[in-house]
């Protein structure tokens, strides 16, 4: 076990170094793109704790991201008692508020399993965009709220995009570390026990209600932080910034990254961003095939490709990128540790 710990720690250090060094080699625009990938990554870590580890399905995580984003918008634009809060400090508050919302959803979720939970959380995802429309004085309605453009604090000499990159990935690494500590410890074991058999877990003294609700809260906290960063980077929020389909995309990212592979989720996050923003590239690749002629700019293309990727991944690689990596490198690393 000890050597496995070293392996994971050195892997984490390598990742941190790569993250720190990367902006030197890429353009400002790419830094912005990678910042957004980092936001999806944060949300996916949360979703992985909930779905991968505790086995509860959520098709409503886009709504928790939206709660985070709107919290940031309200705090930094409306302010509290007319006192506007700097966007940086709204991030933890956004996480906590989304986390509280998650706990709130987690309570009824205790009594709903599998498909019912999927349906209810999907309902949350679909219902949420109605709220800003209803409370339009406070939340800005369909037009939304405009935030100040993100700028580096303390007079740091870096571009706004680079700043967002460092901010997002800094937070992502901290939260990744926290998630890693969480899932390898007592909580992680309890969650996995619940996922594998609720009855067995309860018989062994795992408090189902506590851990399942906790998983929802933590996972929503991650989504809230991601949503807050997303709002800051976009500098505006409206219902279309957090569309219903976002919740589905997050599940896609989770499936592609691997349900319980924290680092593998980076691949999932990258895919979400890539397919949303570069679907025309993919369409051009597909057009290389004979007898196909897709218009790369057509609006249905991303959704179609997402669908195909999702089905193919589930049919061929049910363990996602993380599982594939484990299988590829497993033979090299298993002699360091036994499989848990």
């Amino acid at each position, binding site marked *: 076990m000890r050597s496995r710990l070293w392996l994971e720690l050195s892997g984490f250090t390598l990742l941190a170094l790569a993250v720190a060094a990367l902006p030197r080699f890429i353009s400002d625009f790419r830094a912005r793109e990678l910042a957004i990938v980092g936001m999806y990554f944060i949300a996916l870590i949360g979703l992985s704790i909930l779905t991968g580890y505790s*086995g509860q399905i959520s098709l409503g995580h886009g709504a928790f991201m939206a709660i985070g984003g709107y919290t940031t918008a309200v705090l930094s634009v409306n302010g509290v008692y007319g006192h506007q809060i700097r966007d940086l400090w709204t991030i933890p508050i956004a996480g906590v508020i989304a986390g509280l919302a998650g706990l709130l959803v987690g309570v009824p979720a205790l009594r709903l399993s599998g498909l019912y939970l999927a349906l*209810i959380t*999907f309902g949350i995802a679909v219902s949420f965009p109605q709220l800003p429309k209803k409370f339009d004085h406070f939340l800005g309605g369909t037009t939304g709220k405009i935030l100040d453009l993100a700028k580096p604090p303390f007079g740091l000499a870096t571009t706004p995009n680079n700043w967002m990159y460092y901010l997002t990935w800094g937070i992502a690494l901290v939260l990744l570390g926290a998630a890693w500590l969480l899932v390898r410890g007592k909580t992680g074991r309890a969650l996995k026990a619940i996922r594998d058999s609720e009855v067995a877990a309860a018989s062994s003294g795992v408090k189902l209600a506590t851990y399942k609700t906790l998983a929802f809260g933590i996972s929503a906290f991650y989504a809230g932080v991601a949503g807050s960063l997303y709002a800051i980077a976009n500098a505006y929020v409206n219902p279309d910034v957090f569309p*219903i389909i976002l919740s589905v995309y997050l599940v896609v990212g989770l499936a592609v990254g691997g349900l319980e592979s924290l680092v593998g989720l980076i691949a999932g996050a990258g895919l979400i961003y890539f397919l949303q923003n570069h679907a025309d590239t993919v369409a051009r690749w597909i057009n290389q095939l004979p007898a196909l002629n897709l218009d790369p700019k057509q609006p249905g293309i991303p959704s179609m490709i997402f669908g195909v990727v999702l089905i193919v991944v589930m049919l061929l690689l049910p363990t996602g990128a993380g599982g594939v990596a484990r299988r590829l490198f497993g033979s090299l690393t298993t002699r360091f540790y036994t499989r848990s």
Partner: protein
Amino acid sequence: MLVAAFTWAELAQQLAAGIREGAIYAGLALAIVIIYRTTRVINFAQGEMATFTTFIAWSLMNHGLSFWTAFPVVLAIAFAGGVAIERVVLRPVENAPVLTIVIVTLGLALLLNGLMSVIWGGANRQFHGPFSTRTIDVGGVPISVQDIGIVAVSVGLVVLLALFFRFTKLGLALRAAAVNPESSRLVGIRVGWMLALGWGIAAVLGAVAGMMIAPVVFLDPNMMQTILLYAFAAAVLGGLDSPIGAVVGGILLGVTITLLGRYVGFIGSTLKLPAALMLILVLLLVRPGGLFGRVAVRRV
């Protein structure tokens, strides 16, 4: 919190509209329940499948076919499509965990949605239904012929389906395969094909629901998204494994939501969906199996 002057005639009209809405939800909810009963899968692609077949109907009618000529053709295509989807996409993950199956049907929904945009474009289209929108006077309440037609078709469909499940050998085989696959296999029922048949029937139900709702709203690739959610709510309300429950749940939901939207000012038209969600959430907490459903007892 009454928003406008209350009249009995208007209440009756709202009720009629609610029943019409409810009939549509019931149709789609029935499709969801059929698939759930036969395969224990919730089909998140049900709405997209319905819209897709409605687009096929639209294309056929655009090529000069009348609605009632196109109707059986579309149903046949829907049936074949449903069977094919089960065979190709769902079969390989038959024994996989719930999450995998949910993800696969979500993938299917995305794929079909994208495909519709690519083939037919994202614009709204007018779909001319079989019934006129002229209103007739029923006991002093003006109700459109279209509404009556939609309810009649939905009710007819439910009756047909009930007869099929009760009085035909195939219906019995379908039920048997769902309740006890092992024993059914032993008496010679081809369980795998029964599952595919279940998908086929569900696709047909969806196609009917789609062709009924399309004249009321406009036809576009996302037409069924909210309706599907209400249908899920209706299915859960009635109990996921009860066809009668799906119909009762659908009508009940349609009426409740319409009345809430009309008479409770706070809910209005924007909060209808969250209201429906709260409704099922509360019901599920009180009766976890829905109104007509059975609760599985877990054995330790």
